[in-house]
């Protein structure tokens, strides 16, 4: 048994490919736990960042600077009465959030956080991701229908039409990135997520800059379509609160509602990961081919530790600026503890053995976090599109451009 466990450590591959069930389960737990934590911290970050965009403070009461707010929310939502409308279709109503949740969590199976840090590497990886994430439409449609109420129904109609429409443009822009993977000597491309990043490594360029501006346009199309896919502002029509109160999840409350939120945020992280993998070089550090050499490798491998120390510093400044009053004692201590934990993580990240293993994951997460911040930024800035305008953008703007980019990429691939 122990041999079975340790044997994987020698293998330089993902647990799924190695066929090691134990390590696959460990990875699954790490990834899903990590995603849940990421969703919670994303929740906190969104409220905080949005508040600062809007000259507010955001959550400040639960824990220092509202750090424990997501936990408080989770407890509140779990203990809330779970209301199922009497006219609702109970079974479908019950299963809809689960479908969304499953769909948005299943895609994490193939997301490569590093060359070996993935649960598995399917050779149809990107196809699998697109397919499974498209299943969440089913959950939305079913939730809207099962609520047996007009607002959710309209919300789910909008949502399904929107998600199907943008999937087309999204798929085409993905194809043009996949096309780029085949530009090697053998002329064989790959759909595997790890393979796509390795192709970028091999060609020594992020696909974002490949055949500039073709790669960039494809990336931009994907970046727009992924916001629409995840029903976020400015494409949040399915849950446009001013029109449809809350869209397809109007009738949901408590835990079930929180499952929708969990699914939504998980899906946001998942599609951002696709974008990072396809165009931003996945786990690769910035400038892998211009700033080469051992010195640069060292410099970049120290960044994770320093950034955690930086966060710890910010938290520590927060400690210093806390009001000196007995009432704030616990808060101050809590924040100081948080700062200490961050600093500790930062210091651990300086240990060479940890450093080398972790930095892939760090760069991947940092890029995804950039996208998460963009989501918040969009939400603070843009008004909401109207349904017909949304459709127009999807079908008449993004789709033709995506097809054009695909053809041009193919031509460029043949010529250069």
């Amino acid at each position, binding site marked *: 048994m122990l041999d079975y466990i340790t044997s994987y450590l020698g293998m330089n591959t993902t647990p799924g490919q190695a066929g090691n069930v134990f390590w696959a389960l460990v990875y699954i737990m790490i990834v899903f736990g990590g995603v849940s934590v990421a969703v919670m911290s994303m929740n906190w970050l969104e409220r905080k960042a*949005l508040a600062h*965009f*809007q*000259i*507010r403070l955001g959550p400040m009461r639960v824990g220092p600077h509202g750090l424990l707010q997501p936990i408080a929310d989770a407890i509140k939502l779990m203990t809330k009465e779970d209301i199922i409308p009497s006219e609702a279709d109970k079974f479908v109503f019950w299963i809809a959030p689960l479908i969304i949740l499953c769909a948005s969590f299943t895609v994490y199976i193939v997301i490569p956080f590093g060359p070996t840090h993935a649960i598995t590497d399917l050779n149809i990886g990107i196809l699998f991701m697109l397919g499974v994430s498209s299943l969440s439409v089913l959950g939305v449609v079913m939730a809207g229908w099962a609520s047996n109420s*007009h*607002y959710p129904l*309209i919300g789910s109609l*909008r949502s399904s039409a929107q998600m199907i429409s943008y999937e087309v443009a999204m798929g085409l822009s993905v194809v043009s990135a996949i096309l780029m993977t085949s530009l090697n000597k053998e002329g064989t491309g790959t759909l595997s997520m790890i393979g796509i990043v390795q192709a970028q490594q091999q060609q020594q360029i992020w696909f974002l800059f490949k055949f500039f501006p073709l790669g960039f346009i494809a990336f931009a199309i994907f970046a727009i379509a992924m916001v629409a896919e995840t029903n976020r*502002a*400015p494409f*949040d*029509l399915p849950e*446009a*609160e*001013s*029109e*449809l*109160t809350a869209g397809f999840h109007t009738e949901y409350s408590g835990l079930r509602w929180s499952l929708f939120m969990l699914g939504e945020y998980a899906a946001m992280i998942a599609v951002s990961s696709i974008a990072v993998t396809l165009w931003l070089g996945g786990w690769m550090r910035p400038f892998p081919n211009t700033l080469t050499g051992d010195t640069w490798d060292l410099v970049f491998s120290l960044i994770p530790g320093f950034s955690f120390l930086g966060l710890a510093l910010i938290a520590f400044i927060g400690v210093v600026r806390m009001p000196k009053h007995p009432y704030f004692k616990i808060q101050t201590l809590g924040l100081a503890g948080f700062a200490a934990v961050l600093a500790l993580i930062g210091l651990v990240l300086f240990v060479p053995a940890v450093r080398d293993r972790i930095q892939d994951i760090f760069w991947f997460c940092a890029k995804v976090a950039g996208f998460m911040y963009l989501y918040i930024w969009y*939400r*603070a*800035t*843009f*008004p*909401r*599109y*109207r*349904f*017909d*305008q949304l459709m127009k953008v999807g079908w008449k703007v993004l789709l033709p451009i995506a097809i054009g980019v695909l053809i041009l990429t193919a031509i460029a691939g043949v010529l250069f």
Partner: protein
Amino acid sequence: MTEPTTYLSHLELGEPDKTYLDTNELIINMGPQHPATHGVLRVILKLDGEKVLGTECVIGYLHRGVEKIAEHRTYTMFNPYVDRMDYVAAVSNGLGYCEAVEKLLNVEAPPRAQYIRVILTELNRLASHQLWLGTHALDIGAMTPLFYTFRDREEILKIFEKYCGARLTTHAFRIGGCLYETYDGFEGDVKKFLDFVPSKIDEYEELLTTNRIWVERTKNVGKISAEDCKALGVTGPVLRASGVKWDIRKAMPYAAYSEFDFEIPIGINGDTYDRYLVRMEEMRQSLRIIRQAVERIPEGPIMAKVPKVMKPPVGEVYHSIEAPKGELGYFIVSDGSTQPYRVRVRPPSFVNLQALDLMVRGALVADVIAVIGTLDIVLGEVDR
């Protein structure tokens, strides 16, 4: 429960397009509890998919019988009640009522009082427009302007609070003038506000005016022609955005408005975007008026000679002012006693809301929200 008269029965509704695909029309009940109906407006929408075939407004959820209450109060006692109608522009309501009763009594407020009135009323117009902008933008999906406008509206409310102790329902004026002399530093406060707010208005505009999505959401939405406006009695910024240069402050000046120099902004297309631009410009013009008023404010008494017990001579009077939402009129009938025989309020929101149906026919559900926002209704005033 006596369930109602069939709604939507009288409307000549367009039928859904049944040529090839048979779709059902959908009747949706928006409100009275709905995040975007600005209170307790209930709109029944008949939809073909997302297209609006017709609407019917059901109002009265906030009806308090203000006009009936007036008949049982003295002229002075009724004064605070008017603040509760358009509660975001309480000062304007009070101004209209006080001036109407003054007209009936045949007295005139002293010049200093009139200037104070103009300053406060214009500040209130600014506050009302800021609230409108915030909520309107929120309805269309832009969250952030709401907080920016509320930040700046706060400064206005602070001035009100310092002046008369109340922030929202101010009861700032009395029949015959003003009760309170301006507090020390009033002019300084107003001037400080005047200096700081233009850049803030630019900030709102920066967020919205050239924002592609904002323009797409508002251009050619809820179009209404000048003829339709006149026929439907629509007034205020909505009328002006349709290209009619009509503002009671200019057409039939009241208070001290004839002494100030300001422009009436007008629109061309009469769509939601034009109404937005008109209101933004009105904010700037209000600032202009306030600046002139603060600089030229005369010294003198603030209260005219008004009897303690008011018994206006038998007669009737209609007086209207340009409230932030449109023509706010008071029709007061006196029978010579201490209580008005009848007070009729001509609320701009009530009349403007009637145009909703015309403006949203054939539009989409999202446009209904935009149009409700752009009409700038306050349900306290619609229902009274």
